[in-house]
């Protein structure tokens, strides 16, 4: 096991774009090399040590390497972007795009995460213990193919467009979501333990969504299929009595999307 500890140096002004903070890029590298890795801040490239004190404890393969970010990195974007292995622990809030396009490994954010967390994720686990922003686990703007695999766990609330264009994988939100959760979904599973505002599953053609709380404005293109008690969605068990809908007939004549809404 090896640990790389990044300690933020004071407040960051313009957001820093730090795709280099990835266990599979940093594993086995000496301190000086990690300190010298380049990150963008606005139009200039700077070494990582401008923003972090670096402490390297041992050297190991990426799978055995943990990056610990000990502080507030809410103004650092793209942490773990595209990572394939290893672990990142963020002991504070994280900025936008954390875990975007990650394909393997684990990211744990102890506080809130910014927008686009786990965007177009392919594999691995992203866990956010606080709230997440907009576009969690969604497709990039303009694209209709989002996350294809892996798991996102949000213990707080998430905002709009959770899992937009979801094609595979699983997103579980313990709190509430806002608008257009599962929009254009084609596969995979989204579970919302709290409430949703509107547009749940809008234009979905496949995949599953389950909402435990209240959907304030239900999408009009869904048709009721019946009621099920403790249904299992794939291997994910839901608890309680659910009304099952299929849709969205607004986009297709033969949609395969399933929406479970818990009876309250």
């Amino acid at each position: 096991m090896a640990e790389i500890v990044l300690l933020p140096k004071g407040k960051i002004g313009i957001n820093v774009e730090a795709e280099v903070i990835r266990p599979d890029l940093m594993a086995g590298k000496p301190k000086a090399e990690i300190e010298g890795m380049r990150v963008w801040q606005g139009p200039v490239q700077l070494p990582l040590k401008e923003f972090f004190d670096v402490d390297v404890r041992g050297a190991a393969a990426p799978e055995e390497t943990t990056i610990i970010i000990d502080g507030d990195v809410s103004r650092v974007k793209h942490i773990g972007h595209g990572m394939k292995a290893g672990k990142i622990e963020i002991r504070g809030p994280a900025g936008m795009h954390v875990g975007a396009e990650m394909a393997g490994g684990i990211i744990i954010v102890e506080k809130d995460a910014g927008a686009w967390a786990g965007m177009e994720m392919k594999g691995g686990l992203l866990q956010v213990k606080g709230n997440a922003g907009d576009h969690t686990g969604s497709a990039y703007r303009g694209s209709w193919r989002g996350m294809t695999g892996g798991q996102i766990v949000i213990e707080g609330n998430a905002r709009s467009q959770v899992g937009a264009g979801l094609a595979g994988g699983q997103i579980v939100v313990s709190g509430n979501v806002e608008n257009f959760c599962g929009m254009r979904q084609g596969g995979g599973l989204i579970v919302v333990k709290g409430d949703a505002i509107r547009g749940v599953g809008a234009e979905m053609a496949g995949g599953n969504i389950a909402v435990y709380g209240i959907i304030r404005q239900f999408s009009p293109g869904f048709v009721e299929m019946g009621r099920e008690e403790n249904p299992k969605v794939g291997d994910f068990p839901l608890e309680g009595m659910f009304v099952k809908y299929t849709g969205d007939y607004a986009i297709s004549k033969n949609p395969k999307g399933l929406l479970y809404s818990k009876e309250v």
Partner: protein
Amino acid sequence: MAATIIKNGYVFDPLNGIDGEIKDIFIKDGKVVASLSGAEARDATVIDATGKTVMPGGVDSHSHVAGAKVNAGRLMRPEDHYKSVRAKTDITHSGSGYTVPSVYKQGYDYAAMGYTTVFEAAMPPLEARHTHEEMRSTPILDMGAYMVFGNNWFIMRYLKDGDVEKAAAYVAWMMRTHKAYGIKCVNPAGVENWGWAKNVHGLDDHNIHFDITPREVIRGLAEVNELLGLPMSLHLHTNNLGHPGNWEITRDSLQITSGMDPKNKTEVEWAETKENARRKQCVYLAHAQFSSFGGTSWRDFGSGVKGLVDYVNGADHVVIDNGAVPFGPATAMTGDGPAIHDLYMLSGQKWANCDIELECGSGVIPLMYLKGSPISAVQWAMGLELLLLIKDPWKTIMTTDHPNGGVFTQYPQVITWLMSKKARDDTAKECHKWAYDRSSLGGVDRELGLYEIAILTRANSARTIGLSYRKGHLGVGADGDVTVYDLDPTKLNVNDPATLMQKFARPDYTVKDGQIVAKQGQIVAVPKGRRYYCRPYLDDTLEKEMLVDVKNWFKYYTLGFSNYPVPEKYLTNPVPIQVNKPLEAVVRR
């Protein structure tokens, strides 16, 4: 300006009949010269091309690179941009976009690939200003744009009345007014019907209100073209494009101009060429692949190329570009609004559509050509069949109809397939079995050589659009546009497609007007290109009569008549080409 010598390369210059001879190319003041004086040679920039292939700079005669629909493609596809980026350097701008790059990136990418001249294939008159604005911001390349006329109200009205001369007066005035280079005809008579959610499906279908048929429009515009004597022939996008079984209407459309006499009445100085550099064709068929579908539905869909090729092989008045499909993401954009709507109904993707008042229309959708898709696989085979089965390379031009069939940066891949049977067979193995089952490509052994590639990518594209008075060859007086590929023709191994492709993608040098603009893919200079357009003239009296009609119907436009023209200040280094002046007497029928 200092001189440049490209020394000792194997030169491929088809318009001068030079097929791989070792030669030096001398350029002075931006033009090819026969020799340099001792002093000039001493100060010249010398490029050592020993063991390398030297060709004239690439000429793309059909690409969608500027204007409203191109920009619509950029705007509706942010996902096309975020993974395809280009960082700025000391002399270049940043840019982004894969299938529809930003204007700067387009210019750099073309130049890095050895192309120096690119023509925008469809400029609606009302969008001419926008088109010229984008071309103004495109670095390095020499450019021009063809104007869309096939569904223009004035054209349809005059041609219905049988008044070809008045139609010609209108075209002449429009080309001068909007700085257009040639006549483009898109789904003649059909796009007008699209305003009523309809189309035309046969050459003798009459459209709504104007009551004109595609046959009359094609015939009329071709006559207008030769009456004025434009440098290029009519550029045709046929009816029923993208529909199974359309190869027959395509053949019949080409027949319409059979027997017409190509006339180039431009006043330009012709650089020296051994071969005849004047166009022979009366019709230049755009992206033939999309117009040679076989079958009757998507179930029995297959290549209809053979039927079309049989006709083209026996005809002397036709040039085609193929519109290859090299697989991957694309953005379909055309003035053929109904064709794009039909594709949208199949893909269910996002869709943009525009009605351009009294002139034309357009549509844009994202597309993805997958090797595993039966339709895409056949289209891939068809694009290559067209260039391999038409015997005379002087009837063919290689394009991808960028970005409809594929992206221009995939040209090296298409060239590799044309040069290597092994490359085709390797790809066919990865494709849906329809690729070879429903085309004849698997049985084609022909492999094009470098001389033929030079015809397909520069000599014939330049000749077809009447630009061979200065482009597409290296005769004395031609523009000093040269591409040096790191390919030794004596050691060419077409069974190594990956290397071949890489060499075509990244030439050692791209030289424009004698100046090195790109070196192994790096942009090293960013001169401003020229903008070509035609200034045809007809009869003054006729023009006055015609303008009365235009002003009368201008009440249907959403802008004022005085705001219609595009002044020359929108063009960088404008090169107006005088056509038909002194005036040839017009006899009205």
